[in-house]
């Protein structure tokens, strides 16, 4: 019986270490979002394994991105999309990959698909529209995923907003993305104005004015020059809505 | 007092291949090696003598049988701390100097730090390696490797020293030096077990011998007893003329004795070699 003590203890130690690693893995798993992504599965044989195994993820992601350019030139949609998504999966913190993948899928690939089917002259307008919408939705899906990983998501939100506006023709969705972009910490100055203009043109005039005025007052007015062009836009809206003078934005000292 | 090594009914089988065929290397061997003697374990290659030594040292497990060293079960730390071992064709880390190797082995053998320097110097002196002690082992000749191997085996002043083919590949001068070391150990009251197939050397240095063949013990006893032919005598005569020889043969015949051969005595080639190259060291 005693001869089994040592092997028994060895088994206990190995199983114990394995059980403990389950606890540590639960704690540390959220810190490694790069692994376990479905996008990597089809490309495991293309040198990507090295990136999954351990270090060099950024380098492998870069090389994958360079290879995707070659396929982009050839307009090889499945290959290019797979490699671009692989690069995103290998380095999900890179905004550049998400942004360009979203643009490429949402804008370029729809054109490739129409060309593959015989060109704009051959493909009926309805089908073209369906293709544009189909790829725009896919592009937005990619961008949504990237937004979840990015610390500075404004460019991704703007890209999604553009796709929603120009390809899906879904202005409500576009406005939501523009609003989110405008309210993010890295918001570009033009996001709020574009958002307000789309809402205005979509018929949501009072809502557009209210939102843009609040935004301008809170985030633009305190800045150095107070963004006079945006104030000009707001004045135009006030005129369009026929607001009384007391309902309008009080005139700042610097306004011409 | 217990024997230096006591082997009782030792059997060692090696498993060959995945089918588990067994090769019996040592077959029911019993041996008592007394203390304070130089004991030769002889036999042709593959007869099981090295395996026996490995089992004694606990490097290989026995299939059956019992072994004790100086009264302790073999393979225990107590038994091994009182044993020194020089393996066949020793190889040591080339980047260490001779002194570093002996120090390393002394520490592994349990020599106290306070006694370390003296123990290392004694062992190097005994092996005549003091002069070359600070050279890297990679620069040593084969004879020097054997001598530094001897030094590491005796640095902790063991009661039992086991030497496996200590002179294999060593020239006669080096071989004689090792012979002197063995005698020095015996003079200090140590037990030396010498495993070799160089019969001339064993005959010169051993008090007792055991001969193994195919894993079995075929002969064991004192060297004189084993080698002596009690029914034959040798006389060495100077200035023997034909007439004197005839007279001597006649006188012997009168007593029922018969001269079976008359030859000139020869010195051994080893003696001649050592005489000619005396003073040279195997540097």
């Amino acid at each position, binding site marked *: 019986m005693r001869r089994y003590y040592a092997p028994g203890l060895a088994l206990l130690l190995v199983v114990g270490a*394995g059980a403990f*690693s389950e606890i540590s893995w639960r*704690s540390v798993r959220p810190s490694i979002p790069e692994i376990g992504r479905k996008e990597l599965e089809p490309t495991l044989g293309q040198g990507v394994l090295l990136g999954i195994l351990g270090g*060099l993820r950024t380098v492998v992601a870069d090389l994958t991105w360079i290879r995707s350019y070659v396929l982009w030139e050839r307009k090889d949609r499945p290959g290019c999309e797979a490699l671009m998504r692989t690069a995103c999966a290998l380095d999900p913190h890179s905004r550049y990959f998400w942004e360009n993948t979203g643009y490429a899928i949402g804008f370029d690939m729809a054109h490739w698909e129409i060309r593959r089917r015989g060109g704009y002259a051959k493909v009926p307008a309805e089908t073209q529209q369906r293709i544009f919408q189909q790829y725009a939705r896919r592009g937005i899906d990619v961008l949504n995923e990237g937004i979840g990983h990015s610390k500075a998501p404004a460019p991704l939100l703007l890209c999604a907003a553009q796709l929603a506006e120009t390809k899906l023709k879904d202005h409500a969705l576009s406005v939501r993305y523009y609003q989110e972009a405008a309210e993010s910490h890295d918001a570009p100055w033009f996001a709020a104005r574009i958002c307000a203009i789309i809402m205005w043109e979509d018929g949501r005039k009072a809502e557009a004015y209210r939102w843009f005025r609040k935004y301008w007052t809170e985030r633009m007015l305190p800045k150095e020059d107070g963004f006079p062009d945006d104030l000009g836009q707001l004045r135009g809206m006030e005129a369009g809505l026929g607001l009384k003078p007391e309902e309008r934005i009080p005139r700042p000292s610097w306004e011409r | 007092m217990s024997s230096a090594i006591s082997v009782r009914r030792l059997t060692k089988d090696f498993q060959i291949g995945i089918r588990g065929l067994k090769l019996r290397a040592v077959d029911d061997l019993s041996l008592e090696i007394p203390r304070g003697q130089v004991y030769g374990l002889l036999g042709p290659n593959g007869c099981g003598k090295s395996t026996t030594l490995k089992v004694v*040292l606990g490097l290989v497990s026995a299939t059956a049988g019992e072994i004790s060293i100086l009264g302790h079960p073999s393979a225990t*730390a107590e038994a091994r*701390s009182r044993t020194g071992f020089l393996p066949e064709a020793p190889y040591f880390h080339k980047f260490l100097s001779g002194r570093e190797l002996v120090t390393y082995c002394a520490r592994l053998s349990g020599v106290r730090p306070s006694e370390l320097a003296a123990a290392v110097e004694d062992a190097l002196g005994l092996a005549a390696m003091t002069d070359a002690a600070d050279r890297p082992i990679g620069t040593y000749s084969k004879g020097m490797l054997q001598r530094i191997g001897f030094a590491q085996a005796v640095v902790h002043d063991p009661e039992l020293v086991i030497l496996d083919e200590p002179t294999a590949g060593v020239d006669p001068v080096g071989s004689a030096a090792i012979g002197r070391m063995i005698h020095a150990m015996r003079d200090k009251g140590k037990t030396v077990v010498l495993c070799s197939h160089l019969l001339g050397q064993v005959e010169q240095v051993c008090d007792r011998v055991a001969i193994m063949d195919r894993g079995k013990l075929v002969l064991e006893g004192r060297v004189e007893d084993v080698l002596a032919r009690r029914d034959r005598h040798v006389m060495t005569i100077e200035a023997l003329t034909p007439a004197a020889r005839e007279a001597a043969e006649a006188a012997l015949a009168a007593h029922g004795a018969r001269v079976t051969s008359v030859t000139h005595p020869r010195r051994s080639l080893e003696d001649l070699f050592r005489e000619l190259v005396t003073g040279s060291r195997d540097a």
Partner: protein
Amino acid sequence: MTPSLQRTLWISRVTFLEAVRQRFFAFLMVLGAAMVLSSVSFRVFDFGHGELKFIADFGFGGMFLFGSVLSVVMTAQLFFSEIDNKTALTLLAKPLSRSEFLLGKFFGAWAVLGVFVVVLSGLLGVVMWAREQELVAMAEQAGKVPVTFSASGMVQFALLQWLRLGVVIAIVLTISALARTFLFAVVVGSLAVVAGQLQWIAQDAVLKPTGSILYGAFLWLSTRLLPNLQQFNIGDALVLGATGVPAEAVAEVALSGLAYMVAYLFVGTLVFRRREI
């Protein structure tokens, strides 16, 4: 210090000396260092990750790749050089137990990998610090928020890498204790490293409910027997703070590494005790 510990340390010392004198070690060390240094010139290939991330990734990659190769090949070589050259005969005939011998080999090899990790992570830290200074100055001029790296995160990452390599050494020693040839030990050791890096797949799966008892048992067994080496690869989060890692999580990973080492070394000792030299 107990005699047993002293003997173990002497074996470690000689193992360490033997390893650092090997050309293989020097070669991989130089290659790793060159990789870290060259990351600065390769940053033209960078696609907006941030230069520091790119440099860090090169360094982490070098440590992972060359560290893994070194810990597998060098450990097997250090073990088999003793067996094949029969120096193990000389050593194990002394009052030195097999566990002391194996632990001595482990600590010697682990110390060498410690030097490797310290040199590479130190070099990486210097390269990143130098570039960080330039980037901070440029960002301040442009009125942007500079990207920085965490030196304490780098130290934690280096420690975790050292632990990971320690687990690999313990596994390779266990395999070597069982193996008859150096080549077998290297091949199986390398496969074990790859399996360990991919073990998280089973670990992730085991956390989700499964309908099949057999599949569940297989997952459970593979997560218990194979080490999860991927949990040590949290360099991005530690050094660049991409997602952040709680201190307790780092401590848990470190303890997990130590638990693996103890477990595999215990198994290795048991196997080595039965080995005929």
